[in-house]
């Protein structure tokens, strides 16, 4: 596991979403609270012009995961086991502010509450990240507390769109849609497994493609409940989406994510996907 003494490294994924986070809680008494700013620029936009759900989920995973990890110190660190996000308003481009705090610090698990607010103070999303406490080989990472980290370049110019950067390809199927991506080193977290935010983005893409295929309209993921059942290690990764029904708040979609190289199911998700406009003819 990488030792992030000076905070200038981070994963390629956290550098891509350009998270800047700082610790604001009374860490010496055990309270773990973080605040983060994420400039949500064009490369993170999705259908309808709002911030892509996969990008939001990646931010939540980064900030919430860091909170949980700090709460597990000094002897352990964490890996995400489930993530839930409910969007209340479309996150328009601009700077997003995240606040997270650990609401339960157990011996084997952590629960982190995360809120996302727009630059004008509008609540945009609310989420919960659950993490398992593990002891890494070589020991837990060491941090200078209170932490203050900035990942990624100062400017987002010339960054490819998130789905393109990950290399996600989608196609319709009789049952819905599939989204596929190779598991490259750039997409791994410090544990060497597929980054949780990347899994979430593949889920996001698959759900949108399923609803787009069903309705003929552009569609954007609004809510997501994602369970990480096992590490994604080999790849390629494939998310298979099927639409379960329609409600006033959107279409309900079920997604299974398989590590094709390891021949196993490693994540499941339920998303709510909303229509955001008419699909442009290709």
């Amino acid at each position, binding site marked *: 596991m990488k030792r992030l003494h000076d905070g200038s490294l981070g994963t390629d994924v956290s550098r891509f979403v350009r998270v800047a986070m700082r610790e604001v809680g009374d860490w010496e008494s055990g309270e773990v609270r973080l605040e983060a700013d994420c400039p949500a620029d064009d490369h993170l936009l999705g259908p309808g012009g709002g911030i892509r759900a996969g990008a939001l989920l990646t931010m939540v995973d980064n900030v919430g995961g860091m909170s949980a990890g700090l709460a597990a110190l000094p002897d352990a660190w964490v890996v995400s086991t489930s993530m839930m996000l409910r969007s209340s308003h479309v996150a328009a481009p601009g700077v997003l502010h995240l606040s997270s705090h650990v609401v339960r610090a157990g011996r084997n698990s952590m629960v982190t509450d995360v809120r996302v607010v727009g630059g004008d103070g509008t609540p945009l999303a*609310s989420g919960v990240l659950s993490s398992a406490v593990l002891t890494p080989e070589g020991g837990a990472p060491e941090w200078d507390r209170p932490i203050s980290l900035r990942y990624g370049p100062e400017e987002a110019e010339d960054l490819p769109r998130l789905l393109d950067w990950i290399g996600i390809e989608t196609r319709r199927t009789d049952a819905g849609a599939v989204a596929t991506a190779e598991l490259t080193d750039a997409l791994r977290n410090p544990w060497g497994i597929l980054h949780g935010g990347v899994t979430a983005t593949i889920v996001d893409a698959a759900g949108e493609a399923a609803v787009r295929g069903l309705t003929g309209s552009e569609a954007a993921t609004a809510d997501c409940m994602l*369970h990480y059942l096992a590490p994604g290690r080999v790849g390629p990764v494939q998310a298979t989406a099927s639409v379960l029904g329609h409600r006033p708040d959107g279409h309900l979609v079920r997604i299974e994510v398989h590590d094709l190289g390891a021949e196993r199911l490693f994540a499941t998700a339920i998303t709510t996907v909303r229509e955001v406009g008419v699909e442009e003819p290709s």
Partner: protein
Amino acid sequence: MAPAEQYPPRRHVHRDLRLALEHAADGSGRAWLPVTTEVLTEGGGVRAGVLAVLVDVLAAGLALRAVSPDWVATADLTLHLTGAPLGDAGGTEKDHGEAGEIEARARVLRRGRTTVVCEVEVLDASGSPAGIGTMTFAVLARRDGNPAAGTPPGGFPRVSLAVDGSGLRGPVLDELGITVTDAASGEVRVPLADFVRNSLGSLQGGVLATLACVSAEEAIGAACGTRVDAVDLHVTYLAAAREGPAHATAEVLAAESDWGCARVDVLDGPGGRLAAIARVTAAATSPRADPVRT
């Protein structure tokens, strides 16, 4: 509080909902809930909170079987309803698999060292898919006082949790003791009685989920200006609610004309210890034009 070996007591929500359970040899299971007027909303659908009780009972049983002789505690519960109607009242528990019963089907997705994850499908009274849920359980070392789970290795055929005299005597929220003290803030409470305790003496997870649903429905309904019923919930259980009463408040995150979303905090006792946090989406429903007769 009823002794562990007598759980659940004769009068208990699991018995009075007349739930039935079945475990298969492969570790999967099914459960049934008779649809009566007492479990319906004004819109005619089965309350999401009641479905949460059904899902919780079924999945917890499978998780216990997977970790036996150890025990489990519910870490989180999610339930996502498709929005389709969930059946008419009027069926009886004799109508196995026929109209009048909700069926839940569950399997263990992952049995890890410290957690178990189960997935549950919910079918409406006609057998059509009506929802899906997942539950995560923390694995706990067995302690003295835990009831004997005692599931035969090969499972067991359908068995009813009802005993003579079981059955709801009024609307389920009244039977649970849930009261609304302030609709706009979603302030609701439930006393901690034997009727709603789990085998460890704290508030049963499905009942806590019901409390969260009601809290959100009240607050979202007030914000939207129309009746709404929970269609999607995610509950994270942080601490056992052992003291009582449990009380909940809601913060409305979104309020559209026909749906909304709220964050709900569930607190335990006068001290207000945070027992659970929930996110609930609720959508507008119309009252039934033809009242259901049982």
